């Protein structure tokens, strides 16, 4: 795989921005659970072997009596009624008499050695009365289905209507009726869910990867019935998140175990546990009808979706809302009727996953757009250009939004990439797919979209942004350093970041920057720096002027420290380090959210656009589909750190490739088909195609942010582009993902009967 820079010249990069890359590549980087203090206890979890069962007997006594076993917790150790979750708080840390998925925690142990903990698990007496498994989301919503939660099995629903969609469809010159089922996908981060918790007096410190440390701190404090500032959370760095570490994972169990002892407790899931109990991408069933007039202008959409959220809600409602907001894609549909439902089942837990909601529905939409284009005889890219939403149009849910002129610029840039004239021979069939998508950035109108941060000098005299945003390998540390260096016109060595921790100081209670998700991290950091920089620069210069005995206006910030403007020397007159003890320098920053003021509550105000071209090669003999090349055209403004930016695009594209071609984790009666990577087929470097990233670096001149997050949009665009390439080659769209070779062979047989 190669990633090529854009046609524009990328600026040179400071190698210090990538100081951790080498260690990560060599496997020597230390993540949060890798360093255990002396005397650390080892955690282990007893998990349900049934997807749905009542616990009829649970006796922890024998385990508690074992020498070396220090803590054993069961359902009664969870505060009555405590549940966690983002919008629906429905998940207990330990099953409360009823297990709802295979692998749900039933009891947990902290012992002096891993072997003792394992042996103690075997001493726990537990009996279950299996209940009927609710494995199919359609069946789950039938009136006679066993109810998995007191409110029934409908976790969330969504409805939106504009105009008269059915009437408009009936009048359409061309209509497409498309159904698509999307797979359950695993995050497959190399760092497993795990952490270390340590109680010291009435305080608890949790070191565990989290994309939202303050959410963890608040949830754990609520569970333990203590003030949030008593819980300190270190959530960064993360060894791969992709959304899988956005919700709580081991933290509640860690906290419950550690709260009962004065020793640190370490709990790290095995890969098999992670597979069973970790979050997955929501499988969707999508039914889409779209129509256009004889000239190819889109008229209407009628969409119905059903998502399987598994046993607990986690981020399910947000996933469904995002799916329904993005199902109209980058296009203007005068009429639309959108209905989405989300069902509880006994199929593990679905949750946040890079590009969530949008990646599922835009596969269906973009394939449908290609089918309509074919019916009208219009080139797929021309069809898209004809129907793009206007730059200043309302958003897809009739909300006010930041104007998006870049959609047209993306389409224009895509047209500059002609299809390759590769010779494939008799064995292979080539296809090219185009896709153009957009997705909301940050959270919808319901928020939370604000953020806090601090600017100050660290003990080494480096200008430092402190924020609870987390580094999960996406490059935010490098991006923030680049932003700081540029904002203050200093060298890369003059800046630093302090990320991913809740502040232990109760006086400040912050800074809470919110979740590092939904591609919001970079824009939040930039807005924090932009807002705080003038005040911080002023405080710095005042303090420096006092030290140097000169006027504030005679000083400027530059490499290494403060420079007298008039002298123009190549070294600072006062280094930043001279001010590390100066009082009153630190600036607390708070920014509000960029939120829509009208439209659906789930509506976003800020959207990111991206185009993708997929050139595929189909093996006529085996039905195998190989992506030969991706060309990605994201419009995220100027990349802060071009290498990281390209990496985000390439990573997203390969994850999209897995979503469409190789990855699926089906369940049978609530049990996943694989518990390791030997039966779950992640793409490898051998599958990765050449990836060309050709970004549109301009946004509207009055854009209130000046950049868009790059974390998800590459995946969102690349996945549908593969389906569109299949349509181009085979004239058909598969009914389900990942694409089955048998379906490909059947289409080839239809096209080329022997």
């Amino acid at each position, binding site marked *: 795989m190669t990633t090529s820079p854009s046609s524009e010249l990328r600026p040179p990069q400071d190698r210090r921005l990538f100081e951790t890359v080498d260690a990560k590549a060599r496997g020597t980087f230390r993540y949060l659970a890798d360093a255990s203090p002396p005397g650390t206890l080892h955690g*282990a979890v007893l998990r349900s072997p049934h997807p749905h069962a009542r616990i009829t007997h649970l006796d922890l006594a024998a385990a508690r009596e074992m020498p070396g076993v220090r803590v054993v917790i069961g359902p009664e150790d969870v505060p009555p009624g405590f549940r966690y979750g983002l919008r629906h708080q429905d998940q207990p840390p330990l099953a409360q008499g009823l297990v709802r998925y295979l692998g749900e925690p039933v009891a947990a142990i902290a012992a002096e050695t*891993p*072997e003792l*903990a*394992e042996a103690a698990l075997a001493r726990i007496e537990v009996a279950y009365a299996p209940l009927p498994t609710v494995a199919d989301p359609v069946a789950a919503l039938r009136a006679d289905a066993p109810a998995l939660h007191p409110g029934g099995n409908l976790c969330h629903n969504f409805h939106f209507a504009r105009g008269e969609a059915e009437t408009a469809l009936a009048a359409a010159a061309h209509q497409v009726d498309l159904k698509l089922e999307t797979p359950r996908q695993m995050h497959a981060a190399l760092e497993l869910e795990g952490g270390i918790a340590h109680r010291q007096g009435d305080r608890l410190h949790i070191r565990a990867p989290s994309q939202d440390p303050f959410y963890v701190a608040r949830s754990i404090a609520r569970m333990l019935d203590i003030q949030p500032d008593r819980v300190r959370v270190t959530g960064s760095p993360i060894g791969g998140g992709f959304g899988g570490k956005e919700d709580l994972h081991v933290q509640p169990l860690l906290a419950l175990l550690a709260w009962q002892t004065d020793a640190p407790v370490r709990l790290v899931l*095995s890969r*098999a546990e992670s597979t069973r109990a970790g979050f997955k991408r929501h499988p969707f069933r999508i039914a889409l009808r779209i129509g256009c007039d004889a000239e190819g202008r889109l008229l209407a959409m009628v969409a119905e979706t059903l998502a399987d959220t598994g046993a607990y809600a986690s981020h399910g409602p947000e996933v469904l809302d995002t799916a329904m907001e993005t199902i109209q894609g980058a296009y203007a549909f005068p009429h639309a009727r959108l209905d989405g439902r989300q069902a509880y089942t006994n199929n593990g837990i679905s949750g946040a996953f890079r590009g969530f909601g949008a990646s599922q529905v835009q596969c269906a939409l973009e394939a449908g757009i290609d089918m309509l284009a074919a019916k009208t005889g219009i080139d797929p890219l021309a069809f898209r250009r004809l129907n793009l939403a206007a730059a200043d149009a309302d958003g897809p849910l009739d909300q006010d939004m930041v104007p998006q002129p870049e959609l047209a610029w993306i389409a224009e840039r895509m047209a500059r990439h002609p299809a390759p004239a590769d010779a494939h021979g008799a*064995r292979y069939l080539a296809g090219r797919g185009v896709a153009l998508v957009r997705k909301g950035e940050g959270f919808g109108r319901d928020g939370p979209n604000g953020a806090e941060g601090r600017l100050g000098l660290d003990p080494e005299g480096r200008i430092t942004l402190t924020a609870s945003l987390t580094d999960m390998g996406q490059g935010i540390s490098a991006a923030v350093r680049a932003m700081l260096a540029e904002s203050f016109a200093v060298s890369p060595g003059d800046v630093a970041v302090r990320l991913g921790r809740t502040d232990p100081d109760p006086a400040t209670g912050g800074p809470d920057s919110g979740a590092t998700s939904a591609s919001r991290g970079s824009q939040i950091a930039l807005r924090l720096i932009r807002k705080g920089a003038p005040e911080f620069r002023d405080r710095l210069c005042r303090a420096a002027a006092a030290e140097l005995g000169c006027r504030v206006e005679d000083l400027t910030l530059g490499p290494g420290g403060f420079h007298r403007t008039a002298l123009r020397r190549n070294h600072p007159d006062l280094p930043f380090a001279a001010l590390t003890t100066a009082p009153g320098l630190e600036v607390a920053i708070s920014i509000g959210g960029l939120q829509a003021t009208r439209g659906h509550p789930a509506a976003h105000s800020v959207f990111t656009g991206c185009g993708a071209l997929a050139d595929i090669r189909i093996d*006529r*003999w*085996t*039905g*195998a589909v*190989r992506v030969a090349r991706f060309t990605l055209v994201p419009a995220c403004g100027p990349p802060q750190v071009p290498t990281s930016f390209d990496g985000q695009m390439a990573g997203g594209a390969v994850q999209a490739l897995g979503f469409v*071609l*190789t990855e699926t984790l089906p369940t049978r009666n609530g049990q996943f088909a694989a518990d390791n990577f*030997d039966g779950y*087929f*992640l*793409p*490898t*470097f*051998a*599958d990765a195609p050449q990836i060309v990233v050709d970004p549109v670096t301009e946004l509207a001149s009055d854009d209130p942010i000046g950049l868009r997050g790059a974390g998800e949009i590459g995946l969102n665009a690349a996945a549908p582009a593969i389906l569109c390439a299949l349509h181009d080659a085979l004239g058909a769209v598969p009914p389900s993902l990942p694409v*089955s*070779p*048998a379906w490909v*062979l*059947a289409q*080839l047989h239809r096209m080329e009967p*022997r």
Partner: protein
Amino acid sequence: MPETATAAPPLWHRATSPDDALRLMAEMPDAVIAAGMTALQLDWPAHLRGSRADGPVIDISGLAMGPDVSVLPDGWLRIAANAPLERLRRDPLTGTFPALRTLLTGIAASGVRALATLGGNLMWGAGDAATFCSAFETRIVTTGGQHPYRPGTANAGLLLAVETRPVDGFVEKVGFRAGFTPARILLAGARNSDGLQLAARVRGGVIARALVNGATEPISLGDRLCADTGLEPGSEDAAILRALVAGRTKDYFA
């Protein structure tokens, strides 16, 4: 040696010579013979910190079994049974036998190839090498002598080398992705004087063989191999195998 394999209690016996290995095998008939151990570990019991053998292990990875690859006087290639697959893949001599090089490239991920051996893959039985050796003429060299390869046949003594005759042919591995993948379907074909010898295997099952020559009815060839490998005629695997056989033999019949 993998860290997971160093914990007590399995008893590790590092053989110092083939005779020493035979002695250990006689003393411990239940012991497993290990070289790369990549496949063996899949069957070992799982513990919190990885899988561990639950019985004695005889380590033959350090035995001298001759050069990794050499050319015999009759033109066959001799491959040391305990040479890591990645070394074999990089050996210039395997480059003279394209089908063998294809097998070695697709047989496992690079990390596995660095440890695993051709002998281990063959003796494991579920690996890709057995299908290859069922299509291409192959001899097995053990401490007990030399004999033609027959899938599923137990060896007398310790496997020392695999000998195979370089001829035109192919190896087609259909997996679940391009990189390391268990073989969904492996089809190998060797062009011999009497025709094209095919060997096919689906998901580690029975190896089916078919000789393609002027007397072969091309229409039924794919169906025959599907039946002999135990495939349901309407299954996805059967559709792939039929298409693959049709594609690979098209030129032959033409």
